């Protein structure tokens, strides 16, 4: 590691930064952040960060005291191989500052080696950074670093995996991946992320490609979620399935709310009696059957409603005046079968209790 740091030091001296003072100022902010993060104990939430900082911690501290610019801190990261190429950025210190800020914490097992130093790669880095860069001020992104101890870690991990897959697929390597991962991690508090700086046409196509790959990764997730979508290939058909699924779910909600409205004469149905014996306790799937069984349903009318309700399922719904509404009818036709099976199983109380336990 030390020899690598040495080589990267020399390399950094070769490139000429444009904004010397800017680099110094931002390096100060940067060092504050690093100190704060290093001193934070390894709690569960911050475990990712301490893991990230474990390796480079000593090195970072060493290099912090050196009078060089931010690029050296970049150099001190454990996966130094990855950053060999980054010191040949031809332009735009702003990007380099952002890279430096994010890449120190890239201690995660990113073992891809930077081989090529072509301008293509640098432009791709810049474009990818452009695309992923947060719109807000750099100071804000730095301050959002402690927020990485965020409960939605799996979400971030999914994004990281997507980045890794994408980078593995492409010939351009690691630094982009780490930057994007970290920028993803740090942009978590923000929802919309788009940068609007114009660049050369080459970077446009690369940004397009990165964006398309991001969309494809999300589509894969959707495919896994929608049942029966795994075998379909082709975006249009998958989108068809997704649309159908969302529509059917919405219709189910409509239908179930209608059903609940019929079963109970009052809109808060049996909830009062459901929850008064259990007031204050948390709701639990297992509690539901126990809550439901000792209830006394005072309203005899409800049974009448229910029987009526059951009978109507066997008729053509369109003929029933009470179901005269158009939108409601569509629901019933499609979900009639499921309802019938549900009604038949309602006769055995134990079976139902088990169903409730499973459903909740």
């Amino acid at each position, binding site marked *: 590691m030390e020899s690598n740091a040495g080589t990267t030091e020399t390399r950094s001296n070769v490139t000429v930064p444009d904004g010397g003072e800017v680099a110094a100022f931002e390096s100060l902010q940067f060092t504050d952040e690093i100190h704060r993060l290093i001193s934070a104990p390894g709690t569960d939430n911050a475990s990712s960060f301490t893991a990230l900082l474990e390796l480079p911690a000593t090195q970072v501290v060493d290099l912090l005291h050196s009078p060089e610019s931010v690029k050296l801190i970049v150099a001190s990261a454990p996966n130094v191989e990855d950053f060999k190429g980054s010191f040949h950025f031809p332009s735009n210190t702003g990007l380099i500052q952002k890279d430096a800020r994010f890449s120190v914490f890239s201690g995660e097992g990113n073992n891809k080696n930077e081989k090529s130093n072509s301008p293509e790669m640098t432009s791709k880095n810049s474009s990818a950074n452009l695309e992923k860069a947060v719109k807000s001020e750099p100071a804000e992104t730095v301050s959002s670093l402690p927020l990485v101890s965020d409960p939605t870690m799996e979400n971030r991990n999914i994004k990281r995996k997507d980045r890794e897959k994408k980078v593995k697929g492409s010939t351009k390597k690691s630094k982009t991946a780490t930057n994007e991962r970290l920028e993803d991690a740090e942009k978590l508090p923000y929802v919309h992320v788009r940068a609007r700086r114009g660049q050369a046409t080459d970077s446009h196509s690369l940004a397009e490609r990165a964006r398309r790959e991001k969309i494809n990764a*999300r589509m894969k997730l959707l495919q896994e979620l929608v049942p029966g979508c795994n075998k379909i290939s082709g*975006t249009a058909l998958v989108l068809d399935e997704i649309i159908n699924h969302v529509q059917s779910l919405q219709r189910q909600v409509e239908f179930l709310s*209608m059903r609940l409205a019929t079963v109970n004469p009052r809109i808060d149905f049996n909830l009062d009696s459901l929850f008064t014996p259990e007031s204050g306790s948390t709701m639990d799937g297992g509690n539901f059957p126990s809550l439901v069984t000792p209830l006394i349903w005072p309203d005899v009318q409800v049974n009448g409603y229910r029987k009526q309700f059951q009978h109507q399922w066997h008729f053509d719904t369109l003929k029933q005046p009470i179901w005269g509404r158009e939108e409601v009818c569509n629901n019933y036709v499609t979900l009639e079968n499921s309802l019938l099976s549900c009604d038949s199983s309602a006769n055995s109380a134990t079976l139902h209790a088990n169903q409730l336990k499973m459903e909740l």
Partner: protein
Amino acid sequence: MRSPFSLKQEFLKKWILGLQRCRSSKKNMSIFERKKVIKLSADVAMASARKGTTCWSRALIADAVKEGNADKHLAEKILGPASERQPTKKVPVGAMAYNKRIRSKKILERSSVIRRTIKCAPQAARPSSIVKTLVGKRRQILRSLIPGGEFMNGVSLIEETLDYMISLRAQVDVMRSLASASKLVNLN
């Protein structure tokens, strides 16, 4: 991601609160009004369970309390007094301008696409363009389905769809089990 079970719990809690708030209105509601109340309270509960982190939830609540909406008072009653409303994540002003930009961009794009298709109609036989229009049409449909979908661009559209689908599924599960629970009560 968040565990589905806690999502269901939260949704149920909020739904019940909302329903109890609506209870004070007229006693003998017709079946359709009841259904409307149930569905509205369920939707609002689902959206507020997200605590303003997703676009569709914000759009859903905003639609419910929109000025021109017939059930605005109902929605407001469900949400509770303004002081109780959960602070939704502040949408930065940049995002609003961004939405407007997106919309104006889309209008421009659509007009230019129309012009382009009129001009180079024979070239539409190219497979890539056909696929693009197919996918684009479906995206439009998806946008119309998801609340607040018009403001989302490609990537966020898919993310919002994911989240919306998960929430819908949880909602359906809870409603179904509640319906069967009340049926069980009726049997006794």
